[in-house]
């Protein structure tokens, strides 16, 4: 194998590692052998071959594909044709969407980025690939390309075209629009990949591979996750809960091999002449702790608390009792809304907003009032077997943090924890009362699913 290819494989591996995919040296060697066996002629085969040797789980594929596109690009430079007119390109795109021709879509994505994606010194419209934008404050933008091309507006046209072609084709006609929408989505992703590649050519692959690739779902920051990412996250609730449940059960089983029951050991030793041959262990009664969750569901942290509520609810058979309370500036119990079977994760936030009384005079969160109201109205929910979790960013909007209320709650509970989705460096900045609360209750940074999983398995009482 030439050193060029070997070097490219190793930089690909390095970039995957930077994104949290664990790849060992053995796998790199296998990857190189795969490249040798497959050759460089067919890019898609190479992609599958490298994926098979380097990856270990299906989610890692989401990181792998964009990184692969950067290191093994479809081509170099522009597509080599002159700049296409917007209308002409849209016509060809409509035809390609109607035929669902993936290779043609990929080529059109290349032309589209070339024609409409350039920004910076070359100005709007851009030029053909050869001249391109000059170095400096410029590059290629998929957003701009899609904004100018507006592929979504082709929907009606493609639909009518297909209908005319196939005649009104009975039942499956109603599926047509969704199918076209999915094809347009494919095209958008192709444009994004193409823009990334063009930028990578200018700024060096390593930098783009580092910055422009979305992380795996468990590393997405709760506070900056977009709609689609949140939906992705919610889908990971059940597998994560299953994993945590096995871990908790295992811990419980291990814990039961603990202290020696002296009385029964001595009683048993009588049959062996007073020599304790078999130590008898104390039987543990399975303790099922109670759990109370106080969740801030105001807009700023909603994704985080939704997710955590669902997770705890999915773990419900690990606990004797789980009660969930939601607040913005008033508090209300939402345990019933999370009940099993009725929970469709997507609409949870909306349902909580609609069915629980969470806001009083205004719509911004007020920890002081909410904690005070909880201590007053639901004080009896917290007892000596209860562990309390507070979920929120501790941003009080400048109102009184009401520390005595929190002190009363934690004083009565067995343990209390606060999970804060903000990075630790931002605690105490602006209106954050995090440091004040952190003196009364153990506060942990919990920014993504990975951290949450680790915290839950460590903090949950067993």
């Amino acid at each position: 194998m030439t050193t060029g290819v070997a070097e490219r494989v190793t930089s690909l591996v390095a970039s995957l590692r930077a994104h949290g995919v664990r790849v060992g040296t053995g796998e790199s060697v296998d990857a190189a052998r795969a490249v040798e066996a497959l050759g460089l002629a067919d890019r898609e085969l190479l992609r599958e071959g490298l994926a098979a040797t380097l990856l270990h789980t299906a989610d890692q594929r989401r990181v792998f594909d964009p990184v692969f596109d950067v290191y093994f690009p479809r081509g170099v430079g522009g597509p080599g044709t002159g700049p296409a007119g917007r209308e002409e390109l849209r016509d060809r795109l409509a035809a390609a969407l109607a035929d669902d021709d993936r290779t043609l879509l990929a080529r059109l994505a290349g032309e589209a980025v070339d024609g409409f994606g350039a920004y910076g010194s070359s100005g709007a419209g851009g030029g053909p690939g050869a001249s391109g934008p000059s170095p400096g404050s410029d590059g290629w933008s998929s957003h701009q390309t899609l904004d100018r091309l507006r592929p979504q507006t082709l929907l009606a046209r493609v639909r009518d075209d297909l209908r005319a072609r196939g005649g009104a084709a009975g039942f499956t006609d109603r599926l047509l629009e969704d199918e076209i929408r999915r094809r347009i989505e494919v095209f958008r992703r192709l444009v994004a990949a193409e823009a990334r590649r063009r930028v990578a050519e200018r700024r060096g692959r390593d930098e783009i591979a580092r910055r422009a690739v979305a992380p795996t779902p468990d590393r997405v920051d709760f506070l900056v996750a977009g709609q689609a990412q949140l939906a992705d996250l919610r889908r990971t609730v059940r597998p994560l809960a299953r994993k945590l449940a096995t871990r908790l059960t295992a811990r419980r089983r291990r814990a039961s091999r603990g202290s020696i029951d002296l009385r029964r050991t001595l009683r048993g030793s009588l049959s062996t002449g007073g020599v304790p041959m078999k130590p008898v262990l104390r039987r543990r009664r399975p303790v099922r702790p109670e759990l109370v969750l106080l969740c801030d569901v105001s807009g700023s942290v909603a994704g985080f608390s939704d997710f955590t509520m669902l997770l705890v609810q999915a773990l419900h058979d690990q606990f004797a009792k789980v009660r969930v309370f939601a607040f913005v500036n008033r508090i209300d119990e939402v345990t019933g809304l999370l009940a099993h079977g009725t929970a469709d994760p997507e609409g949870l936030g909306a349902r909580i907003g609609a069915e629980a009384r969470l806001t009083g005079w205004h719509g911004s969160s007020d920890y002081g009032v909410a904690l005070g109201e909880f201590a007053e109205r639901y004080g009896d929910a917290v007892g000596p077997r209860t562990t309390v979790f507070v979920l929120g960013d501790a941003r009080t909007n400048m109102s009184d943090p009401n520390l005595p209320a929190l002190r009363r709650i934690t004083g009565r509970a067995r343990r209390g924890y606060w999970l804060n989705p903000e990075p630790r460096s931002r605690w105490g900045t602006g209106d954050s009362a995090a440091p004040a609360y952190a003196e009364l209750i153990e506060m942990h940074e919990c920014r993504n699913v990975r951290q949450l999983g680790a915290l839950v398995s460590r903090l949950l009482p067993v």
Partner: protein
Amino acid sequence: MFTSVDDVSARLAETGYLASPAVATTVFLAARLGKPLLVEGPAGVGKTELAKAVARVTDARLVRLQCYEGVDESRALYEWNHAKQLLRISAGRDESWDEARTDIFGEEFLLPRPLLTAIRGDDAKVLLIDETDKADVEVEGLLLEVLSDFQVTVPELGTVTATRRPFVVLTSNASRELSEALRRRCLFLHIGFPEEELERRIVRLKVPDLDETLAGSLVRVVGALRAMELRKVPSVAETVDWARTLLALGADTLDEALVRDTLGVVLKHQDDVLRAAAKLDLDTL
């Protein structure tokens, strides 16, 4: 074993397994690099079938280890035939201890289980370790020696090393995370739901008598169902079942009543049926 990726797809297709490019490439690499192949994916996309197809293509014997909770060394690797050993001892009552001892731990009294079977002998074999995730974690440890060095240690006999490496396929439904150590020893392949074009070809191959346009619309409806949020999305096996059902009903076009009446073939939960009916604008009764 195979000369190229195209060779893999062509030969698999001859035995009735239509492989996507990803599947063909990974099978080719597994054969070329001599590494086990770990296949994950939803139920009913042909994970087990892949191993069987490879065995048919390469004219190899399929050795199958079905994993379940509690499968152990004596089920997976080997076991001594105690009853026969006892018989042997009582038959040779007059011989000395030394003679008896060396005798009863010989090949004759060994009951090879799938893993040992796959390693011994000179004929070509495909070892299928099915539903690996159902087995306990301890069994994974057992697999490590077999999968990395293709050898098994029997204390009384010594180490048995494969003279001819079997082609190994492990399948998993991801009901439990497999350990990192096991994953690292394998090539990883995720088989998802096939593209529309491929699925149409699969239906045509499995149910050749079905009308072609009907097969096309069937596959499109299944594609739409998969895009919905359902508890159990239909898999390829269900598509084929549905195609068979429609053939048995003698249908020639897909219409509302037909879809409504046969939706139970593809969807296995009542909530799913209701939800899909609402999304597809079927007027339910």
